[in-house]
């Protein structure tokens, strides 16, 4: 697969065969060092993050929105800072939130995000926010919620009948909610757009891991998604916009050094790849494929 031809000896030859463990060690040092010695690199919000922020900021006090924790414990480092920043922003604006999750381990994550922030802002469960919990059938849940939140979730996560929850008197289906927020580590954000945005005309903003964020561009450009946050950078941009720098902003230093190191490794690998070929070319033996 590599196609390199080995030249006897030489440091350039060794550069083509750096042990993976050296690379792993380099990444570990590059990422850990800024944690110990913060650089405080400035974060500049992008257009997508500004649109996401505005989608929430332009809502009125008392509006009910839907928030879906569509991620598991593995991507908490990327998406928890987003969740925290968004919930703080929503409660600051006195928005009311109907929360749910499409991931089994999203329940624990949601509770660890919602509880402390609700307490911080003096919000009451059942009145200012409600957690409907986890439902195994994600597509059925999305479609059913378009008809009725209460019918989809007869009880909330804590076994309380949703018929008795005051918040749901004001919003029982997507037509009653001006915005849906999905923080997703997989294709759930796209499914919300396809099933709910397409069928019910729901306005949607999404927060995604950096890998998944690239997939949201077509939906953002066509207006199906009003704005999105991509990875830890997106979370740090949102923190900058809300004026509450947190875990994401702190993490940008490490992300910067990590990316720079990866670029250096790639350039090093290419230097090592091409150097033996140039030597063979100058000695008149021709270039290999």
């Amino acid at each position, binding site marked *: *697969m590599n196609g390199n031809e080995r030249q006897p000896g030489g440091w350039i030859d060794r550069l083509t065969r750096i042990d*993976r463990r050296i690379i792993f060690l380099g990444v570990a040092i590059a990422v850990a060092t800024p944690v110990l010695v913060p650089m405080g690199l400035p974060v500049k919000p992008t257009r997508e993050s500004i649109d996401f922020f505005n989608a929430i900021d332009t809502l009125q006090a008392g509006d009910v929105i839907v928030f879906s924790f569509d991620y*598991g414990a*593995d*991507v908490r480092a990327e998406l928890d800072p987003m969740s925290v920043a968004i919930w703080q922003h929503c409660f600051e604006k006195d928005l009311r939130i109907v929360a749910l999750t499409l991931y*089994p*381990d999203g329940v624990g994550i949601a509770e660890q995000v919602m509880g402390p922030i609700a307490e911080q802002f003096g919000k009451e469960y059942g009145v200012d926010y409600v957690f409907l919990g986890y439902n195994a059938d994600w*597509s059925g849940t999305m479609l059913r919620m378009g008809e009725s939140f209460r019918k989809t979730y007869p009880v909330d996560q804590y076994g309380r009948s949703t018929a008795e929850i005051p918040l749901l008197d004001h919003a029982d289906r997507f037509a009653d909610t001006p915005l849906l927020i999905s923080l997703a*580590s*997989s*294709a759930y954000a796209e499914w919300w757009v396809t099933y709910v*945005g397409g069928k019910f*005309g729901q*306005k949607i903003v999404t927060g995604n*891991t950096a*890998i*998944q964020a*690239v*997939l949201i561009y077509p939906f953002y450009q*066509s*207006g*199906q998604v*009003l704005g999105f946050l991509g990875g830890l950078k997106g979370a740090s941009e949102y923190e900058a916009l809300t004026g509450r720098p947190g875990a994401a902003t702190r993490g940008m230093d490490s992300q910067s050094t990590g990316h720079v190191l990866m670029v250096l490794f790639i350039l090093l690998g290419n230097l090592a790849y091409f150097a033996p070929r140039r030597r063979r070319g100058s000695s008149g033996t021709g270039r290999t494929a």
Partner: protein
Amino acid sequence: MIPFPAWLDTARLAELVTALSFGTLVVYFVRRARSGVDIQIRRIPGLEAVEEAVGRATEMGRPILYCPGLDSMDEVATVASMNVLGQVARRVAEYETPILVPNRDPFVMTVAQQVVREAYAAAGRPDLYREGDVYYSTYSQFGYAANVCGTMMRTKPATNFYIGKFYAESLVMTETGNATGAIQIAGTDSDAQLPFFICSCDYTLIGEELYAGSAYLSREPLLLGTLRAQDMAKVAAIAILLLGSLLAAAGAFDSRAYLPG
């Protein structure tokens, strides 16, 4: 009695016309294929390599590992994966090579067990099928990846297949497979994972090449006919896109009026 016009949601008329047109294309080409018309598919290197990959495993006396992806049977990529698994399992049965199929979804596991069992029976070797080889791993994404990596390090399969829907765990598995020296063939419609598969696998089926997999390997007329219908629909879509772009560029209509919201 509800008047007839109220029966149809006219806002979705374009989608209905598209669906019916596409359905007509499929039926037409399936009938053509059934009538014996030869339908050609271009060479797909990843699928051509299946035979070689199975043979390699047999020569080395090592098993084959087949990961059918992380999603359930309602995902098209998983359906396509089961089709490819059937073809791979048939070849595996002929060569008497063990195949391991770890599953993340219990439904998929049930279907995979049936597919592999039938493939062994079709090859005349039902005795070789071992139910423990097609097993349920865990629903946890990275728990599944850890299980697959552990299996790779212990059993050292000669060939790894990653066919289906994958997410962030894909690179963890393929890099581990690389470290064990296995040939790796991947196929997915998860375009976020395609760069990782292309970097770390020997062959990669991109998007629709995965859906074409079962038609390619089996050469069944029905499947080939559907594939041709897909291609024709794509040609039509390209033509409409070009026409729309030209008209929008000429100012024939304001394309912004069609944006949602």
